[in-house]
């Protein structure tokens, strides 16, 4: 392509147009290779046109995700509480410790399929992925840092200004580009390769008899809230747990009394690896979770109407549902070397 261009000045315009097209095309291709929306997933919520993914942006976001430089004393990174082996949740932790060993009040959720999220956080207080990192970075029980300090530390770092230039064309590190980079890494965390996905795509043998029975039961008894291929309708509901602390849930965001003690319906992908469960991590096993939903008698009076009186699930059915939930595990995602530090 380049050889046909004559060095004559009157070809310069042509060269510019051609190179524009060339780079435009190559970036389009790069984007496609970077982020693939699985065919059996709904349309994404994230507006990629505002933050086109690039290999440099993804690599920068990954480095930032694993770098404790984001915290006040350099001890806590995003990865401290969001680890790949548990779908970027915090394995074996009901709650997590931040800087100075301070304890958070909610369970660290998984980070997967974030491009489909309509809000972030258990209470949905953050509407956009690019706005989310402000919260853990500045929260006194998480990273306890000030944003201007983060930007200043990155700006004088030996590598970051160059990496930002590669990703966004400027060595000056802006808030917007910092957040875009973190989003680029997180958006790539797509889990769509479980046995359940293979079944959805037509491979009958991907699920065994018990798992198929479990899927049917799940569709009858759980999918009103845990809907669709991402197992969430993105709503906020009171699931019957009695409050242990003073966390008002979604109410703190909307100040609507109906939202008191409501929390987000989470995705169930990689659920077998991402315990403990519930917004405060109080339940250790999937069996305990099913038991909670069976037992309407112990549920809080403000429980969601769909759960009133509990869900009728027999012992056998319980095991089948758990078997199905385990088929949502995606080893290709949990062990993907691309997401490793």
């Amino acid at each position: 392509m380049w050889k046909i261009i004559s060095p004559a000045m009157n070809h310069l315009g042509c060269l510019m147009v051609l190179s524009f097209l060339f780079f435009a095309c190559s970036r389009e291709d790069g984007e496609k290779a970077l982020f693939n929306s699985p065919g059996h997933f709904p349309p994404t919520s994230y507006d990629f046109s505002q933050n086109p993914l690039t290999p440099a942006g993804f690599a920068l976001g990954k480095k930032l995700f694993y770098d404790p430089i984001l915290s006040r004393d350099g001890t806590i990174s995003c990865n401290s509480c969001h680890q790949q082996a548990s779908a970027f949740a915090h394995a074996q932790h009901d709650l997590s410790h931040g800087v100075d060993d301070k304890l958070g009040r909610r369970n660290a959720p998984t980070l997967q399929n974030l491009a489909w999220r309509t809000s972030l956080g258990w209470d949905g207080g953050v509407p956009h992925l690019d706005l989310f990192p402000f919260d853990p970075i500045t929260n006194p029980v998480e990273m306890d840092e000030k944003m201007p300090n983060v930007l200043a530390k990155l700006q004088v770092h030996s590598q970051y200004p160059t990496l930002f230039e590669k990703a966004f064309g400027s060595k000056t590190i802006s808030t917007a580009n910092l957040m875009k980079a973190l989003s680029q890494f997180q958006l790539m965390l797509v889990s769509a390769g479980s046995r359940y996905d293979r079944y959805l795509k037509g491979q009958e043998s991907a699920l065994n008899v018990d798992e198929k029975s479990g899927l049917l039961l799940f569709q009858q008894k759980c999918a009103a809230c845990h809907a669709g291929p991402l197992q969430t309708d993105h709503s906020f509901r009171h699931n019957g747990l009695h409050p242990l602390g003073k966390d008002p849930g979604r109410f703190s965001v909307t100040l609507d009394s109906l939202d008191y003690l409501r929390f987000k319906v989470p995705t169930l992908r990689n659920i077998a690896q991402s315990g403990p469960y519930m917004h405060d991590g109080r339940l250790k096993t999937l069996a305990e979770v099913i038991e909670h939903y069976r037992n309407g008698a112990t549920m809080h009076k403000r429980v969601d109407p769909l759960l009133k009186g509990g869900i009728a699930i027999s012992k056998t059915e319980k095991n089948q549902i758990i078997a199905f939930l385990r088929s949502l595990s995606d080893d290709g995602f949990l062990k993907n070397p691309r997401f490793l530090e």
Partner: protein
Amino acid sequence: MIFRISLFIVLCSFFACQKNEQPSPSAKNDSGSVVVKFDNRFGSTKLLLDGTEYQNAAGENLFISRFDYYISNIKLQRTDGSFYTVLQDSSYFLVREDQLASQRVTLRKVPLGEYKGISFTIGIDSLRSTMPLAQRTGVLDPGTTAADMYWTWNSGYIFVKMEGSSPAIAADPNTGKRNFWFHIGGFGGYNQRSINNLRQVNLNVSDGTLTVSKGQTRASSFHLIVNAAKMMEGVQKVSLAKNPVVMFNSFSSTLADNYAAGMFSLSHVENY
């Protein structure tokens, strides 16, 4: 490539902005600047942080350690009643009591003419509050200047921040301090309705007009008095002892109503 695209966008938006400007002055000489001065006070005296003791309408003594607020979407009213709207991208200001320079705001490219009033929003409108971060720079950047005027857990700006202490407030059992915090914000909610503490202020010159004319050596100015005491009395008396912490809760709307009702007044204009 990204740079090229952004350059293209910047150029587009540049031209878009040029088009939007209303009414478009055809040459530089058809416009001038207007200064808006914010004179923060408590009652009738100049507001001083920390050392000075004041008394609110509820009869409580207090010290103020901090007083910051956002002003946006400024419009100037002509003598014929029509409005000149300041270009939206240049219409966001953060006034801080501890930063003298922030209390003097300059509006550029104001069409020549006579103006009898000024109106603005206290806070940041919902549209701007939900724009991508790249369009929220300067005083709106949650990573720098706006970092202490932004709720990270419930994304949005704090419109008005007043902090201080009062002997009327019960001592904190852990620290022994008697502090109060008024952090008032809330633009109505992103995807579900929530409180809206945006308030509009319209002020008129009682006597004469403000002139923007050719060849002015200094910009004419609106002098606004901002009476911080009104936070606790504009519509409803607010007791610090009863309400030492007012942040994102329903009571915050009472304080918003208070600051909308007479906290800002127009003292006079100066013409040059």
